[in-house]
């Protein structure tokens, strides 16, 4: 790809806030809190829509140079193609000088997933099965992923210390009124099947305000449990604790 053509594509992508990946032969200069230069070599430059800039060498998991979000990007062209990422405060300039461009691609990327740092809902379920007393003393799980008629699956189905059936629904985020309604439908299915109404517990880090009223309305119980605590329980289960009683 010739440099002029590449420069045009890069400018377009930056203007339309696309995720930009440029592969080429480049030199890198940095001036700011320190200064550094990196001679010519084949590398991958990434420019993110928020103004983050990363340069990766062919090996290693960390970028060799980078600029944080908010950098202003400029593209200059003479006999070489120069990309500058500037920050004002602190004053920092990352200058990337291309002698060859192998490829330029840009994308409109969408990623709204939540980063599950501690535990997934599946991990939370494992933690409860490993240590049912975190729900309440005397709680005994009987089945997980139990079918509730044809409307779905109950996360954990069990009995309490008084022998009453318990339907447990697990959420790793705050419970919503939609979650409450879903649980109510499970309760009705179980009531149809067993002829008596089970207890129902939503296990989540918290409850949305709008759902709190519905909990009371439908007689659904809430038990606070965070993914983080579940991660701790799973970790303890693998470690020394289970031997040190």
């Amino acid at each position, binding site marked *: 790809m010739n440099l002029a053509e590449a420069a045009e594509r890069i400018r377009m992508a930056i203007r339309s806030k696309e995720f930009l990946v440029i592969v080429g032969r480049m030199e890198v200069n940095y001036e700011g809190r320190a200064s550094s230069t990196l001679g010519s070599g084949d590398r991958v430059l990434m420019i993110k829509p928020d103004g983050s800039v990363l340069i990766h060498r062919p090996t290693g998991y960390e970028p060799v140079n980078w600029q944080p979000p908010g950098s202003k990007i400029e593209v200059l062209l003479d006999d070489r193609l120069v990309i500058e990422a500037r920050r004002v405060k602190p004053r920092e300039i990352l200058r990337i000088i291309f002698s060859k461009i192998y490829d330029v691609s840009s994308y409109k990327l969408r990623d709204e997933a939540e980063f599950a740092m501690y535990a997934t809902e599946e991990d939370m379920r494992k933690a409860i099965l490993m240590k049912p007393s975190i729900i309440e003393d005397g709680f005994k799980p009987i089945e997980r992923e139990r079918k509730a008629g044809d409307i779905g699956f109950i996360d954990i189905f069990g009995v309490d210390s008084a022998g009453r059936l318990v339907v447990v629904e697990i959420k790793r985020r705050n419970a919503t009124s939609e979650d409450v309604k879903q649980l109510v439908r499970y309760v009705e299915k179980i009531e149809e099947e067993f002829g008596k109404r089970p207890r129902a517990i939503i296990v989540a880090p918290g409850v949305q305000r709008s759902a709190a009223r519905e909990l009371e309305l439908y007689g659904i119980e809430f038990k606070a449990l965070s993914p983080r605590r579940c991660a701790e329980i799973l970790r303890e289960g693998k470690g020394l604790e289970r*031997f040190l009683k």
Partner: protein
Amino acid sequence: MSFRMRLPSADYFSDLMKAVQAVVDEGTFKIDQEGMKLIAMDPAHISLVDFELSSSAAEEYVCEGELQMTVSISELMKFLKRAKKGESLTLSYDEGAKKLELTLVDATGSREKIFTLNTLETVEARSVTPRLSFDAKARVGVDAVKDAVRDSGVVSDYVKITINPDAVVFLAKGELGTVQTKLSKMGAAVYEIEADKEVWAHFSINYLDKIVKPASSLSDEVVMQLSTNKPIKLSFPIPSGRLEYLIAPRIEGA
């Protein structure tokens, strides 16, 4: 409340702290008239260290009441690394000021260096040595164990340790192949075996190595205690103190 302890050798204390650091980076010491103690687990709760240095290890030991001191062991090590051979070490801690003072004095008493370490917020520490029962016990040369663990590391991250009435066996299996070290009861590396039957469990080589390496500069032998699929206890006999570890086994499917 305060505490003051003078040890003839700064190097020795430095080696002890390296051995504690194998398990924890931040530790809470309980200090009383009898000595200083620390019982702690690593952040993943796989290993535990049970450390005690009794007041008899000190040339001078003053402790009023009972106190707790939480320090970053890696920060403490930065100071202790500055100790030269033959230097004595005096530790003094003022609970109110939350400062630990380390005084290093050379053999002739001509130079005194004082380091002050800010201690951390005290967290309630574990104080009871866990009690576990074991079906087998072997007293083995520490270098033989260190080598066996490292050899196992060539093929795997885990090693199966077996104690039977005749030998201590380390067996590691990996994609590359297998490594087995057998330390026979008749051989020079094994001092004693007490076992009626064969017991075994799998352990992380990483944890074993982290513990055995620093402890090997403090003791020539290690007492290994084991039951099938239970934690292993490694005790390193040290003068005027205790240095013991527990490591959780790896159980298939767990």
